[in-house]
């Protein structure tokens, strides 16, 4: 946006005057650049803020005195297998047939909501979920499972080591 030089060509002859240059600088390009940089810095600072998912583990104590036994009828076990598969069952391993499902809205979340309601209705108490990641599962599976707990608002859950009997279950169903 250059301004037109409207000062005229000047008169021929007469005194030679030094031309007065305008003190105004065109700042448009500078403003453009500044806003471009602002946009860049906004994007890189606020959009890349990492989020933290809090995990609380039960305290591991050698003398386990103050642990309350949970009725098998209201404990749900989730086994995290390989290839993004989950197996779940209610109660003790081997007593009820485990079911293989996927992560996500129609898999794990639906099951958790349904079973949570069922257990609430039949026993009158909340459901306890045990998350047991197998050695073949990956970190994403664990985060997904914990995230589902947050989404379905299950308050009582724990990450527990998997038992050999449960590994056998996973192996049998081809998820290990």
């Amino acid at each position: 946006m250059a301004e037109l030089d409207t000062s005229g060509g000047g008169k021929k002859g007469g005194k030679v005057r030094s031309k007065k240059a305008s003190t105004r600088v065109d700042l448009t390009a500078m403003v453009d650049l500044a806003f471009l940089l602002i946009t860049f810095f906004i994007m890189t600072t606020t959009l890349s803020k990492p989020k933290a998912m809090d995990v609380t583990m039960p305290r591991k104590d050698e003398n386990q005195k103050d642990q309350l036994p949970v009725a098998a009828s209201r404990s749900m076990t989730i086994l995290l297998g390989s290839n993004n598969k989950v197996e779940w069952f209610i109660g003790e391993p081997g007593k009820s047939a485990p079911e293989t499902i996927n992560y996500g809205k129609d898999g794990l979340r639906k099951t958790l909501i349904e079973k949570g309601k069922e257990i609430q209705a039949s026993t009158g108490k909340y459901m306890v979920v045990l998350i047991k990641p197998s050695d073949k599962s990956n970190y994403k599976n664990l985060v997904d499972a914990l995230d589902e707990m947050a989404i379905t608002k299950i308050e009582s859950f724990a990450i527990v080591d998997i038992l050999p009997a449960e590994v056998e279950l996973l192996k049998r169903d081809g998820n290990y």
Partner: protein
Amino acid sequence: MPRVKVARKSTAIDMTAMCDVAFLLLTFFILTAKPRTEDPVPIDVPASTAEIPLPEENVLLLTVGQGKVFYTVEGTDIRKQTLEQMGEKYNIKFTPEQKQVFSGVPVLGVPMNQLQAFLNLDVDKRKAYKQPGIPNDTTANNELADWIRESRKAVASLHNKPLRISVKGDNKEEYPTIKKIIGIFQRQRIDKFSFITAVKNEPKK
């Protein structure tokens, strides 16, 4: 009828004030921006619906990828203090230059016996050096556990605040590595820690 002449105005607008504002904002954003720390191994963070941002200070970050564990703690004073304590524990005398270098190293993944050699490298060489990760196993006294313990002590003495422990893991990281780290936390009675996740836009039920 004579035509009414519209006075021609200049199309140039005075940009000075706009320029001032733009640069003021730019200065603010540059000053508040934190340089992004480069991950030593490619890390693809899983997404979750967690919305709590990670605090800026008193944070210990363990980066986990490809079976290796890397250690980061915020604050140069805490880093220096931690290195001194680790030196005492492992009977390594660090020179002031090495301490200075260490306080500027964002991510550490070198075993204690190679640490001095690592700190003596040039800046460019140190960046190119493939860090092997901090040794960790299931015993009670491995190097990673010591780093965590000494950092907690340093933060407690310098800032008088508890240290927040967080884990940044790769999507494909196998569970045994995570299990080992959780085991280390549990042995030190760290019951509360956080997993760092990206933002996932979950449709509301």
